[in-house]
């Protein structure tokens, strides 16, 4: 059997049994649909379908290795000329991907290689090759429980700390998709943001990533008697956020840590820590005790303290108003896992390595070249190298899709 034959067969079966309802997306007839077929790696773009039935028929006949739809709404989604296509708006999308989050466990499961000079390394892939400086880095990454948990935390942070309180997005307008690989897509389906330009979306990206933040513009002033007036932790938006992160940082930091940020003045803060914190939390909030520390140093502390509350998202996805994005309930061609559609309330108990499995029955025999320790469902395996093994079908297909195993008849 050829490498892909089994995968194709299983994908075909999956799409045959998929119901039309599961293929539902908002305004299907205005979206561009694209697939990557099994035969080659060439994407077929600019397709459009008037209803779920015709889409279902198409993918049953032409089994996709990857299936995408446009975040954009078009007047004529099948047109290839962008002027004729007629952009009418796009969903606001955020991409949280473990690839963009430097997690500690990456040294255990990720490798990268420079396609220019063949220099290799393990862990989080650098942007430029440390050997030759070229940007031709190819990473070989694996899905991992820890990475996915951290990605999930990022999703909650984005929604709970930014989208709902600051942007006023309602829970019902948020749709979350597990990508079927290393992360989540957050779709905001609100009509309000639909027409936003790419520049407007960039401002939203900068807002949640903390780019361009100028703490001085959030209510810091020198009072008439030389005292410092500052924001209140109860204030909304970044104004309150700045006061809160400052409070939390001062509450936890050691003298040495603080000295690294603001030098000798750190002593003043540590000595009066209790009182300073009490003042900031009191009503109204007071920053007077920080007079000798100065606004410049307060800003320095804030710039360090905000690091943990910034969202790790891939900005390119949000800014691109013509993005093709994975179709909900389709299969990811690199893993064989399902792109699961979730509501906000589903997310907490969602286990991506279990709930996205579709090939549940049977076992297959494969030859494995090399893999780190991985888990799919309840089955854990590895690290192994050059070995023939029998594994549950879901894991087998995952490894076949990854291209690190061969099917044995």
């Amino acid at each position, binding site marked *: 059997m050829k490498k892909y034959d089994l995968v194709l067969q299983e994908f075909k079966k999956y799409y045959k049994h998929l119901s039309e309802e599961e293929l539902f997306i908002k305004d299907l007839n205005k979206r561009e649909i694209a697939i990557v077929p099994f035969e080659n790696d060439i994407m077929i773009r600019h397709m459009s379908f008037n209803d779920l039935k015709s889409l279902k028929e198409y993918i049953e006949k032409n089994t996709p290795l990857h299936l995408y739809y446009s975040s954009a709404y078009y007047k004529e989604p099948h047109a290839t000329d962008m002027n004729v296509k007629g952009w009418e708006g796009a969903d606001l999308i955020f991409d949280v991907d473990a690839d963009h989050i430097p997690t500690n466990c990456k040294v255990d499961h990720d490798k990268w290689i420079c396609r220019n000079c063949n220099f290799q390394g393990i862990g989080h892939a650098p942007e430029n090759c440390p050997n030759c400086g070229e940007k031709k880095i190819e990473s070989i990454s694996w899905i991992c429980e820890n990475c996915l948990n951290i990605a999930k935390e990022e999703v909650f942070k984005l929604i709970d700390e930014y989208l709902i309180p*600051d942007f*006023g997005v309602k829970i019902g307008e948020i749709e979350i998709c597990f990508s079927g690989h290393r992360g989540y897509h957050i779709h905001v389906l609100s009509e*309000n943001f639909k*027409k936003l330009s790419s520049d407007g979306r960039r*401002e939203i990206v900068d807002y949640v990533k903390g780019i361009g933040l100028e703490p001085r513009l959030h209510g810091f002033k020198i009072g008439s008697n030389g005292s410092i007036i500052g924001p209140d932790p109860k204030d909304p938006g970044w*104004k309150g956020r700045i006061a809160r992160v400052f409070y939390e940082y001062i509450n936890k930091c050691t003298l040495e840590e603080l000295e690294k940020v603001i030098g000798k003045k750190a002593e003043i803060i540590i000595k009066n820590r209790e009182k300073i914190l009490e003042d900031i939390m009191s009503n109204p909030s007071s920053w007077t005790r920080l007079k000798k520390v100065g606004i410049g140093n307060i800003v320095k502390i804030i710039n360090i303290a905000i690091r943990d509350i910034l969202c790790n998202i891939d900005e390119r996805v949000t800014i691109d108003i013509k993005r093709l994005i994975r179709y909900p309930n389709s299969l990811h061609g690199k893993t064989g896992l399902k792109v699961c559609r979730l509501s906000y309330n589903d997310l907490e108990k969602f286990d991506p390595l279990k709930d996205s499995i579709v090939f549940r029955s049977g076992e297959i025999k494969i030859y494995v070249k090399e893999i780190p320790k991985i888990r799919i469902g309840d089955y854990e395996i590895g690290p192994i190298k050059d070995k023939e093994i029998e594994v549950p079908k879901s894991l087998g297909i995952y490894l076949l899709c990854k291209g690190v195993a061969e099917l044995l008849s």
Partner: protein
Amino acid sequence: MLTKEDLAKYPFLKKASEYIESLNLSIDDFTDKYDDIVERALERVKFAIDGKLIKVDLYDPEKEILSYAVALALIYGLKDAWLIRRFANNEQKLYYEMLITEDNYKIIEIAKDGFNWDLELIEDNFIIPVEQFLEIAPRFQAREWKLINSLLDKGKVYLKKVKIARLISEAVKNKIIKKSEEEEIKRLKLPEKLLYKAEVVKSKIERKEIKEEYKEIYTPIKEDLPPCISYLIKEMKSGKAITHMARFTVTSFLLNIGMSVEEVLEYFRNVADFNENKTRYQIQHIAGMIGSKIRYLPPKCEVLKSFGICVEPNELCKKIKHPLQYYKIMRKKKNEKI
């Protein structure tokens, strides 16, 4: 309630265009009739090119409303991108000045009628839905206009009156420029008589005014610039499209001698295929504000030679390897003299 006087002050409002439509006039009707309106329209154009703000005549609101529409038709009919931008800039200033002294409730009505914005007033702050704020705010470069430096709560941005005035007036400017890119406007043909009148106004002031336009912005002393950069600036001023490499060279050079993105942008305004957003984006990129976050230096002389950008090299050019060196040496010489 928006009165006729309000429409005279803010003739960009939808209510004003509805009024004009109700009269059922076309631009051809102004060839032999309504001379006073045409006169006023020409005056508006002249003021715009001069960079002066006209005084609205509230005693004759109809004339004001109509003459604004005719002025726009003249500006569009002349098919001169520089002129359109100049006019739009001037309109922005005009409305800003009027709006900052306007009653708060009136501002809310103007924003609603003009741009369908849903403003509300909370104490001395205006609040505006974030998506409406983001239609215009990204056009401003100042850090205080970034969303992250604004107060955002439950989908609403809080703004003081001066900022709302800036936002609305910038939206007018944007609308005037955007409209000029519409097919229907591109096809617009003025009756010959009107076109002639408009050309006369334009020709009288244009040359002088282009000079002034450049005076407004920060201009490095020409003699301090290496010949290659001077040459490119001259080409751009005359409206020629220059190569990609040449654009990169000028942009990175000007940024590196301390000019801001907006200032560099001004140099590109006359270039034939000028697109404001695209150009700003490219300049920001080279400035390292976006993308790779690397602030680019202009290429070395050696590279400029190979791209044919090095022209008329002088004595000093022979001693240097990089165009920025030229500038630094010239500046130093001057300081020593002083």
